[in-house]
């Protein structure tokens, strides 16, 4: 059966190939967290702890055991699906990730959709009309997007839309305190609220999302717009477009059927990259908007040497990237039939 569906076989092969990567990530994240400077036992023993209570804390945390033994305990727990207990949040890491990863994903995906909706048309327009005002606008937006740090844009947007104009809701995280969280299905409030049919909460969540998503979109649309423009320019100046024009095909057909489709490959690659770095890099946006996402979780865990949380974060990200790369590869084959799995 597998032989008859090459795509399924190739997908399974790709997943199998990612297993060594994940094992590597487990080992490296374990070693790296141990190599971090700082002694979590001292930190978690509290402000007025003396040597004896620090030692008690160390034993309670299992940090007095040899490193190899700690590693096997960790792997054993991992195999049972136990990512350990986060000390800084006081809950199991799996629970934390289940709560926070959707928050980050919701924010990043919304921002990315927003960025695509603006950047791709802008890039296409700029490429088809080089040197005109659209092109200049594209350039300005791109430059502003990359040069303004996200925390600055975030605070600026809060200042204008919340503080001065009072249009935006209080930047108090995912939902204002007057709403109750929707029942947990996916963890993405917009989806969960829609599933419950609770449109009041949906609107509340959407309102909270607008400012942080715009901040992040401003940052992420720059590479996407740039890449779209460059890829479109290359595509439009290639021989097959000249041939298409010579054959008298309509502008519309040339632009969307031939040029855009060919330009799409690098754009999708860029999107994959942008998504991965945005997911990790939106920690500053999360801080400014009190967004309980995964970036700020990881940074806080790192600061206090919260081993289990850092390891869980790295592992979750690794798995996410493996999945993301797979999706992008599958997208390639959908966009460009010349790319097949058989060649790999």
């Amino acid at each position: 059966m597998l032989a008859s569906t090459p795509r399924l076989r190739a997908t399974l092969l790709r997943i199998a190939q990612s297993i060594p990567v994940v094992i590597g990530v487990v080992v490296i994240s374990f070693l790296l967290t141990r190599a971090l400077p700082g002694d979590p036992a001292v930190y978690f023993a509290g402000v007025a702890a003396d040597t004896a209570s620090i030692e008690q804390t160390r034993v309670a945390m299992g940090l007095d055991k040899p490193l190899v033994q700690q590693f096997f305990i960790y792997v054993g727990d991992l195999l049972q699906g136990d990512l350990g207990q986060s000390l800084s949040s006081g809950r199991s890491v799996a629970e934390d990730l289940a709560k926070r990863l959707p928050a980050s994903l919701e924010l990043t995906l919304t921002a990315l959709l927003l960025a695509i909706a603006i950047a791709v048309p802008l890039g296409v327009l700029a490429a088809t009309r080089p040197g005109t005002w659209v092109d200049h606008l594209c350039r300005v937006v791109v430059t502003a997007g990359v040069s303004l740090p996200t925390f600055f844009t975030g605070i600026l947007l809060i200042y204008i839309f919340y503080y001065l104009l009072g249009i935006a809701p209080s930047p108090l995280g995912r939902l204002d305190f007057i709403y109750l969280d929707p029942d947990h299905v996916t963890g993405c409030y917009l989806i969960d609220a829609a599933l419950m049919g609770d449109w009041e909460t949906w609107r509340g969540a959407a309102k909270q999302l607008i400012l942080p998503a715009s901040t992040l979109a401003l940052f992420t649309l720059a590479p996407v717009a740039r890449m779209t423009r460059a890829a479109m320019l290359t595509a439009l100046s290639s021989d097959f477009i000249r041939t298409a024009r010579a054959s008298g095909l309509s502008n519309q057909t040339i632009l969307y059927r031939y040029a855009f489709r060919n330009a799409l490959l690098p754009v999708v690659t860029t999107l994959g990259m942008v998504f991965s770095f945005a997911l990790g890099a939106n920690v500053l946006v999360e801080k400014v908007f009190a967004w309980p996402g995964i970036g700020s979780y990881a940074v806080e865990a790192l600061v206090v040497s919260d081993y289990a949380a850092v390891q869980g974060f790295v592992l979750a990200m690794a798995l996410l990237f493996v999945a993301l790369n797979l999706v992008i590869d599958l997208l390639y084959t959908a966009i460009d039939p010349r790319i097949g799995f058989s060649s790999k």
Partner: protein
Amino acid sequence: MTDKTSRRNFLKMGAAGASVLPFLRAMPAAAQGSDTLVVVTGTTINSLDLHRSGTSRAAYQVGINCYDRLLSFGTKQTADGGFSYDYTVIEPELAESWTESEDGLTLTFKLKPNATFWDGRKVTAADVKWSFDRAVSVGGFPTVQMKAGGLERPDQFEAVDDETFVIKLDRASKLTIPDLAVPVPYIINSVEAAANATEADPWATEYLHMTPAGSGAYKVARWTPGEQLVYERNEDWVGGPLPALKRVVIREVPSPATRRALVERGDVQVAFDIPDKDAAELADKIDVFSTPVENCIHCLCPNFTFEPFQDANVRKAIAYAIPYEDIFQAAAYGRGLPMWGGEEEINDIAWPRKTQYYTDIEKAKELMAASAYADGFDVPLSISLDLASWMEPTALLVQEALGKIGINATIEKIPGANWRTAVLVEKRLPLHLENFGGWLNTPDYYFFWAYQDGHLFNSSNYRNEEIEELTNATLHMPMDDPEYAPKIKRMFEIVLDELPRIPLYQPALNVAMNGAQGYEFWFHRQLDIRPITLT
């Protein structure tokens, strides 16, 4: 008349839209009701059980608002019109009355007969005993804090009958009674906890971590770590006057700029622990309470293991070189209290006290010339990245000033996770900034932690036989003992002359309020929501 879009119609539409806007903005405020308070803070509540190891400072507020102790402190008015707890006045919370035996070794408490836990069960002396046993047995911070009051072993506690609880002390100490009013010795519903304890976890730390079981003024209605905690009033509370607020929402907002915008607009009523800079700038617009933190001093500490600092002239030269006023303005924006330029003669036992040092570069140079290090030396000046908001400007100014007297200091920034290990446990930093603050507000308690050899906050590795002896002698001595004041004065004299810690200023805890009143400063530096009301 006409449905054509004219300029007039367009403007009308705009006006209608604009008039709706204010109502939209006001809606959340109206929906929250008149007895809900919203507080924003930058720190994470990571457990609902203070006794658990790894519980963050911010989580202490749950111990305060959701649990009762036997005793509490009174309230006093502060200089700036706000309120503060009063260390000198002890008030009952769960205890109705208490007596001390003649020799001070036996304390007998009568519990309030009508006190009940949230589940309706009567609070008994057995609950008190269980809770105290837990605090002295779980280890870590609670055990250390209990020990400070002479409470060390379960056999010291006895439940005589349902309403009588007895503490037996090994020695009488003035710190015992105040130590019963700090957040640690709170009373837990022992029946509920025991029902959820396991063999491996006899003190139910896993259960109480997520589910408080107390008799306090507020219950926890919702808790999402990293996001929010919602308190709901316990209508049957007998520990004090029933709080005015039905619901209190504690929201975690990491960015100080966002917290400031929220409280300035009035969408939240309290911004707790805001930076000095925001406090200074907001003070004209809304209510800002900057209370100097009792028994807490920001210090520059020369480490005695570093050879040049064993020279008294070098330490004094540094004390005269420091630009105190500049530091106070740059690092603290003038919030807090100056700790320099005082009288050399010691006439009172108030602590923190102003030192006799002030900025005088010429005098500093003379002292350096008289020392064994007239040509100067190189030294790293260490600061914590976690505390960079005050340490960084301070360190830069100190560095510049030390350069003038030939000491070449290089600033070394240490990540927060390493800081405690390096500065307090290993005590290996030659020159560093430090900010110990004692919960129990007596000078001897400060000396115990910060000046006695080997103790945690003595990060300068200072040892002076007379200080050792005097601190031990005064630690448990009643403050009205005729011997107390002379001994304390002598202690001040020694450490201000020998300067193992050079006091810079007394920091303040800043709280901004917009639409609420009744804030009370507490030594534990957490928000006690019980006395707060909306305006």
